[in-house]
């Protein structure tokens, strides 16, 4: 399979072409369109899985397959700015190249696997749309999105990533604006794209800096050259990574560019699940992890990543605590969880970031789809104040939603617990970790538990607040929608066991850890730098050993469980310790104790959050008590800290004002002479009807006007009196004489 991995992004294109061109006129069948679209995803998933297995069978160091389909761009010579790498000039060549390595493999499985489930779900969800109008359009866009997303994760250079990067942005635009009759949907779509473009501008500059530093955009060459030629803290690397970070904050909805994501909920719920929870928004995280070699060379950027992640997590979680719109809560929750991932990357725990990316994909997709299931049953109702006690009507949705809530809240044993705990541990103990980062993370964990529980209670428990008509129609959704929920629920439970923290590696868990460990799996990508290996020289040595066996995990967990374990390896926690040297064993024990402590605290905080939410909302009566109790703070959170308003006032409106001002300038000044001669303008307006209606005439017109008015002046000299003419001749002669005399 591995030699065919390049087909993965192309398979969904089949769906795009067939559905896009023929569905509206010739096919007109929801079943065909839906099955084709989902089928494409399934085939892509199958190819991805096959390649994954094959990749896992290879030695860790060799897990890297690259293919260049054709020369995309190749230009003439470019001179580099930086000679550190020894390349002074090179052509700008970008092959259309794809690569398959542990990170890409994992991302492919998440994208195609979760994507497939969401496609299936969408067949049910979108069934109200006619097959030849919205329905086919929806699936065409979805497949197109998948294709671009796969290019993004499979590309072998920054330029390839950029294709996918912009492509998914486009699909996001199209899908957010799917209900285009709604103005809000159109606005949201545009906002999403433009906010992303701001990030892209950063990405581009970062990319250019990289090119002019290394003479290539190919990952392997860039990272190798960077590791070989640059010291930690090199200015150019810091600049490049900062710029990339701007791009990442756009795509992954981090401060300061997160504002588009909540609005993006205007799209259909499967879109929110796929694009704005599971896949596209994680592209920023993917990019940071992919470029970890560069980021690790720049402590400043790393700090920025961590701080942005932490602050975003905190801010978004606080907003999520007070929202009433079911999808907005989830949207802010997504922003918050993405902040977690950034936090992980920022402290240097890239693999853990990816780990959380994966588990988050499971439970957030699940939550969105469950919320969509609710909406679907309630005819599009989004306000949680108009729900309640739905568990009675929608048992499967309820149960899966419950699983998702527990998972995200970090209840021990579920997926979110493991990944979140790893992040918190690294936030404290990682190479760039700091206690305050851990504290923020832990606080966010509590808030997460709080708002998720609040949501769960408001939607599924308590008394029904639906109106009668709605209530009478509420029903559980068909299997095509609930089956994906169940699969994702299972994944949300077991998905965490691919990355068991060090302190829990006891008994059967230790055995499992030895077989499957996501961190170790990603080591070829994330572990190639100094911090990761210092404490684990031994692990490196082990990595060199021939593989004793390769196990394919139980099928139960879908793709995620199929992680290769290598016998005889030490737990390869990437960022195990800050200090170097010393006895490994002692460190391990210290860490274990600390890790236990921290884990207990965070679990307690999470449970406290659940308890608090139950305390406030779980008593059967909907209350707006928090609103009263925390007046100012509540209102700040409710209004999302007025960031949208601020951006509108500072950027959007200023840009519009500037545009308007320039337009006036264009008309008045450039296009009208310094309108020195008011007379001229007046006369021109009178004299020539082609100038009509132009109140403000501009520079160019002004020249014309002065010509025009001087024409009248000149004509006035021509009085018709012959003696005046003679006089002018005499004066002319006199002037010539004097000119001759004085010059």
């Amino acid at each position, binding site marked *: 399979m591995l030699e065919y991995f390049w087909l993965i992004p192309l398979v969904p294109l089949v769906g795009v072409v067939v559905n896009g061109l023929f569905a509206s006129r010739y096919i007109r069948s929801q079943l065909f369109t839906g099955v084709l679209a989902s089928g494409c995803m399934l085939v892509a998933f199958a190819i991805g899985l096959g390649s994954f297995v094959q990749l896992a069978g290879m030695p860790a160091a060799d897990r890297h397959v690259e293919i260049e389909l054709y020369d995309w761009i190749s230009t003439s010579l470019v001179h580099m700015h930086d000679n550190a790498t020894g390349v002074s000039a090179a052509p700008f060549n970008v092959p259309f190249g794809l690569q398959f390595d542990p990170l890409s493999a994992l991302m492919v499985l998440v994208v195609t696997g979760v994507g497939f489930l969401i496609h299936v779900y969408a067949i049910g969800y979108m069934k109200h749309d006619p097959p030849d109008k919205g329905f086919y359009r929806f699936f065409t866009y979805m497949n197109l999105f998948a294709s671009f997303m796969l290019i993004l994760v499979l590309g072998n250079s920054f330029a390839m990533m950029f294709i996918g990067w912009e492509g998914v942005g486009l699909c996001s635009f199209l899908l957010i604006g799917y209900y285009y009759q709604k103005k809000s949907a159109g606005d949201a779509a545009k906002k999403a794209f433009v906010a992303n473009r701001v990030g892209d501008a950063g990405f581009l500059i970062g990319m250019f800096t990289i090119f002019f530093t290394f003479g290539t955009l190919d990952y392997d060459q860039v990272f190798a050259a960077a590791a070989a030629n640059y010291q930690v803290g090199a200015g150019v690397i810091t600049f490049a990574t900062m710029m990339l970070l701007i791009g990442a904050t756009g795509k992954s909805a981090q401060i300061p560019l997160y504002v588009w994501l909540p609005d993006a909920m205007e799209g259909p719920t499967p879109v929110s699940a796929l694009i704005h929870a599971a896949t596209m928004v994680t592209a920023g995280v993917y990019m940071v992890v992919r470029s970890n070699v560069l980021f690790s060379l720049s402590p400043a950027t790393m700090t920025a990543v961590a701080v942005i992640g932490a602050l975003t997590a905190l801010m978004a979680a606080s907003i999520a605590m007070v929202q009433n719109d079911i999808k907005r809560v989830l949207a802010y929750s997504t922003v918050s969880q993405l902040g977690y991932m950034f936090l992980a990357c920022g402290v240097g725990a890239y693999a853990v970031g990816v780990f959380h990316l994966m588990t988050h994909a499971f439970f957030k997709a699940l939550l969105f789809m469950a919320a969509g299931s609710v909406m679907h049953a309630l005819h599009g109702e989004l306000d949680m104040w108009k729900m309640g006690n739905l568990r009675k009507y929608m048992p499967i949705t309820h149960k899966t939603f419950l699983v998702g809530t527990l998972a995200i809240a970090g209840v021990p044993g579920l997926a979110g617990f493991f990944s979140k705990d790893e992040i918190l541990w690294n936030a404290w103990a990682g190479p760039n970790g700091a206690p305050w980062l851990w504290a923020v993370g832990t606080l966010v964990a509590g808030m997460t538990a709080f708002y998720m529980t609040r949501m769960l209670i408001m939607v599924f428990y308590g008394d029904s607040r639906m109106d009668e008509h709605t209530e009478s129609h509420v029903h559980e959704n068909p299997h095509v929608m609930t089956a994906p929920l169940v699969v994702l629920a299972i994944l949300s439970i077991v998905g965490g066991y691919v990355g068991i923290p060090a302190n829990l590696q006891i008994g059967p868990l230790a055995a499992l850890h030895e077989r499957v460990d996501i961190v170790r799996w990603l080591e070829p990508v994330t572990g190639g730098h100094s911090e990761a290996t210092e404490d684990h020289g031994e692990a490196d040595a082990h990595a060199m050993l021939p593989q004793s066996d390769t196990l394919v995990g139980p099928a139960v967990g879908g793709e995620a469980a199929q992680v290769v374990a290598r016998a005889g390896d030490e737990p390869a926690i990437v960022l195990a310790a800050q200090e170097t040297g010393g006895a490994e064993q002692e460190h391990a024990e210290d860490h274990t104790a600390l890790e236990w402590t921290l884990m207990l605290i965070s679990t307690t905080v999470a449970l406290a959050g659940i308890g608090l939410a139950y305390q406030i909302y779980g008593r059967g009566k909907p209350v707006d008590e928090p609103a009263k109790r925390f007046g100012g703070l509540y209102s700040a959170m409710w209004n999302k800290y007025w960031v949208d308003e601020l951006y509108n006032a500072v950027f959007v409106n200023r840009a519009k004002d500037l545009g308007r001002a320039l337009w006036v300038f264009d008309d008045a000044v450039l296009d009208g002479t310094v309108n020195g001669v008011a007379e001229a303008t007046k006369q021109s307006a009178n004299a020539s009807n082609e100038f009509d209606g132009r109140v403000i005439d501009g520079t160019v017109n002004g020249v014309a006007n002065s010509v025009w008015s001087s024409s009248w002046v000149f*004509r*006035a000299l*021509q*009085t*018709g*009196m*012959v*003696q005046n003419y*003679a*006089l002018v001749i*005499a004066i002319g002669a006199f002037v010539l004489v004097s000119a001759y005399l004085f010059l």
Partner: protein
Amino acid sequence: MATLGLNHYLLLSALLFGIGVAGVLMRRNVIMVLMCLELIFNAANINLVAVSRFRPDMTGQVFTIFTIAVAAAEVAIGLGLVIAMFRNSQTVNVDEIHLLKG
């Protein structure tokens, strides 16, 4: 007694020229304007003849003969035009002919 030199003649002709030009500029009657034109021609003639006399060279006098002939023709044509003009507009006043302007 000072003898008359060439410069005296040149001065005289310059005066005559000036008077002629001033007349053309200021006289309202078109006949007078015509006569002032003749003054200008005659200024030139004085120059030519005087120069011819002071540096013995006949060309100047020949030139003068031609100039006088031309001036006669000019007056003839001029008067013809004045008559045509007078028939149309009943005036010989140059101030009053300004149909064409601008």
